[in-house]
């Protein structure tokens, strides 16, 4: 079953002059699939990821996730959809510096309101434990090292058990050990819990260990990789 479907995606940049970043991209991602997207810098893979995450709405084509057609929906609806269904890990951790580590992880969950405060706190601590940063839970986010912050950011992306977890170089700031931990966690989420993972990465090993790798060049898909089902 395709959990995410992108059809005929085109994207232009208008500054400094009109420039076509993405050309006719069409692909589907299966539920529980661990997909990586690779390509040279500037090939448009991050741009594609931001479109898939619903944050970038200025594109041609259609995007559906979990059976919902997202193209053309208003910003408020998209925000609610992101909150519930998409977890995003940025290349840089992007935590809120004034909040504690625990609060950073809990905020998207508080927004969703699926669980009460105490239960949510327990779940947030559990996610932090999976990434081995639970001991830092009550420190301000700004007091952690880069690697720790990146792991907290991954925990934040997982808090609402999203349908799709997206990462823009999610392990870019992690050492080898922590990269392995994070990779194993993501793989487990995909294969055991049926969550879909889409990661843009430069890391050859990371890509090689994923279920499928889409290769991009100059805004086009040059290889769709080998889908699980094949």
């Amino acid at each position, binding site marked *: 079953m395709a959990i995410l479907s992108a059809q005929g995606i085109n994207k232009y940049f208008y500054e400094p002059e009109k420039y076509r970043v993405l050309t006719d991209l069409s692909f589907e991602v299966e539920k529980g699939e661990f997909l990586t997207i690779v390509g040279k810098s500037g090939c448009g893979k*991050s741009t594609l990821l*931001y479109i898939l*995450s619903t*944050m*970038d709405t200025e594109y041609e084509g259609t995007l559906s996730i979990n059976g919902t057609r997202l193209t053309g929906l208003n*910003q*408020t609806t998209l*925000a*609610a959809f*992101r*909150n*519930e269904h*998409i977890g*995003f890990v*940025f290349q840089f951790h*992007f*935590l*809120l*510096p*004034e*909040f504690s580590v625990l*609060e950073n992880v809990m*905020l*998207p969950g*508080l*927004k*969703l*309101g699926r669980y009460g*405060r105490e239960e949510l706190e327990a779940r947030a601590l559990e996610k932090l434990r999976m990434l081995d940063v639970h001991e830092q839970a009550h420190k301000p986010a700004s007091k952690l090292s880069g690697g720790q912050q990146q792991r907290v950011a991954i925990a*934040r992306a997982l808090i*609402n058990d999203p349908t799709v977890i997206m990462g823009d170089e999610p392990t870019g700031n992690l050492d080898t050990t922590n990269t392995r931990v994070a990779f194993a966690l993501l793989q487990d989420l995909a294969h055991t819990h049926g969550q879909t993972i889409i990661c843009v990465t430069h890391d050859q090993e990371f890509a090689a260990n994923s279920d499928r790798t889409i290769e991009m060049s100059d805004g086009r898909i040059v290889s769709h990789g080998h889908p699980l089902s094949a």
Partner: protein
Amino acid sequence: MPSTNFLIARTHLLAKKRQTVIAILGVTFGIAMYVLMASVLTGVNKLVDNLAFQATAHVRLYREADVNRTPVLQEVLRGTDTLVSVRHQRPKPERLYLRNASVIVGDLRRLPGVTGVSAQVSTPVFYNYGAVQFNGTMLGVNVFDEDRLFDLRGQMKEGRMESLLANPNSILVGFGLANKMNVHTGDNVTVATPRGVVQVLRVVGVFQSGIGAVDNSRAYTNIGTVQKLLRQDQTYVTDISLKMRDIYGAHTFGGELARRYDVQAEDWQTANASLVASNKIRDIMTYIVSITLLVVAGFGIYNIMSMTVQDKLKDIAILKATGFSGRDIVRIFLLQAITIGLLGSLVGVALGFALSYGVSRIPFNGGGFFAIDHFPVNFNPVFYAIGVGFGVLTTLLAGYFPSKRASLVDPVAILRG
């Protein structure tokens, strides 16, 4: 349980305590100054109004020498082809009193809108004190009528006003006049009319109306005493003062009475034109200064909120990326603005009250004109309510535009760098 947006707003405010405190102080000073200005200026207005009504009737009826009458010659030669030119016509020798005064007073007492009527005989006199003469005014009145209009009983500093009735040749002297002549209750003063009639009167009381011009020149006596002094009969009345329920209808009502009884009428607004004008100017000043203060406080908040939003662009983008909508962002920043506004306003009205109280304790000599010893301050709760209301409203407005801008932040543009 507080909402998530509130938690975020609170964390933002607490994270930058100094900035928050400065923003709150901006509102505090604006509101405090508004409360102080409004309290002091309207305090002065109220004092002036009260004094004006203590000494001035709502409508005063009197007669004036008629200099603009038609020349007799013209009346005689009416209908003929003669051109009449009379230059520098003099007034007729006539007694300036209100004919039918008792009828007018009787009519007025029956009108439901009229709350008090007092017939008076007023004459300029000289008060002789040793070799020195002071000129002033003597007012012959019925003390009870006069008391109903001007609270004569409350104005008494020495003696009792009823003592006037016990002795026909007695007098109540204004506080300033009594000081000038160095007389007290029980002393005698000699009074001379312009026509040369001289009479010795006994001082039975001293009054103070609070208006220097009155206290320095006026004395009250029985109406009959003045009538005798002027060699006039009991129908001789020069002024009829009246008070009415609808004080702002005084002008129209006065005009009506003037036409009906063929007399001159003066209403309190005309009599106190300068006081009314200065009250208006103070009112306008209150508004201008208050609005300026609040606008300045508003710009301060706008500035700080804009800076906060600018500082927090990345945080806003992160919140949006994790599922907070533009509406949530507006709420988060508006909550911060409201908190600043509410705290600032509450501290502001408290400070305003403290300052107003301080001012009301400052000794202030009203001089000969006003009988007050402290600054007049009007502690009207309305100003405090308006202060809080305006403070919150201004901060809401000042916070809305930066918040709106924050909600439009494009997370992709910020987070991709």
